[in-house]
């Protein structure tokens, strides 16, 4: 391992001994971060699991008010965006800058689509009073404590939505920086990290979709 700082690329930080070490560190750090994300969402999954086990009928009745078509469309949109994200990394690995940008833009657009659909779903529920806690005023669901289902729904999809939003900001920044020539097949850590994050967001949705829309 070389200790000299000369002839090192610009992206190298002084306390790493080589680019490989730096990249590996970033990746490990990112995975640890993802782990905290999983556990953060995990708390909400526990919330869901406990209350579903307590009120199975109510959950079943309440899930029927969700729109499966919209949910399924959103699932497909998000999965597709995950594919394009993965492809953008592949492109930068192959040093195809234009293609990378193109894939990133597609990802961003798909994420936007997801948010728009989500917006319409929320809008509808707000109108009907299918809201968490004190704001719950809907009366079309049978069972006890129906507002808890909607609390879980809004919390989980809401936290997920915030993550999608953050992801969109990151991807936007990536597009900008890729255009500016920051990344190449030699150095694309940021794209890779954002990709990991984006896939995790997708992965969480993969569970949210059946839990809320399909089986309740």
């Amino acid at each position, binding site marked *: 391992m070389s200790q000299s700082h000369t002839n090192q690329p610009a992206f190298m930080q002084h306390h790493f001994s080589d680019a490989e070490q730096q990249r590996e560190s970033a990746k490990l750090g990112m995975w640890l971060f993802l*782990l905290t994300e999983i556990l953060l969402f995990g708390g909400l999954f526990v919330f869901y699991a406990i209350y579903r086990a307590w009120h199975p009928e109510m959950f079943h009745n309440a899930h029927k008010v969700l729109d499966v078509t919209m949910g399924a469309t959103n699932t497909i949109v998000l999965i597709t965006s995950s594919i394009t994200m993965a492809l953008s990394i592949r492109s930068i690995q192959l040093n195809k800058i234009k293609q990378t940008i193109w894939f990133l833009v597609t990802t961003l657009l798909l994420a936007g689509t997801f948010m728009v659909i989500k917006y319409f779903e929320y809008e509808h529920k707000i109108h009907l009073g299918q809201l968490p806690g004190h704001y719950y005023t809907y009366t079309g669901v049978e069972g006890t404590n129906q507002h808890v289902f909607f609390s879980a729904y809004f919390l989980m999809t809401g936290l997920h939505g915030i993550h999608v939003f953050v992801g969109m900001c990151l991807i936007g920044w990536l597009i900008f920086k890729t255009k500016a020539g920051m990344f190449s097949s030699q150095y694309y850590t940021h794209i890779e990290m954002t*990709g990991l994050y984006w896939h995790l967001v997708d992965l969480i949705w993969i569970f949210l979709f059946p839990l809320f829309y399909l089986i309740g």
Partner: protein
Amino acid sequence: MTDNTQTNEPHVLPLSIYLGVGSILIFLTAVTVYAASFNFGEFNLLIAMLIATVKASLVAMYFMHLKYDNKLYLLLFLSAIVFLGIFIVITMFDTLRRGDIYEIKAGAIRDAVIYDSLHITPDAHALEDSLSISTDTTEIVIDTTK
């Protein structure tokens, strides 16, 4: 990329893998929606979760490169799931097993306070009146505004 002299040269997967995995994911989405239209009773949850887990594993293994990367990341990823599992399972040893010894109802005695003022009318336009009622009847509402 043919030139592989650099140590940090990335491991590039063929396009077919991404597209293949992507199609399987979309296909499985369709399957799970279709499956949900049947009632398998207790197995509904199991089936849906099984499909979701397969999908999640595909994303993690291929898109997130866990299959090819340092196995440490896989370990971390799994440990998060394991600890979450521990959390859910042991908590359920409590929540589902209360009142094991007694015949009393170990669950809630009454519904949430908001239902005192919610009229059961399947009419969405009851919105306005029930809202106004529910904000002035419960003490909780008063307390939280402080």
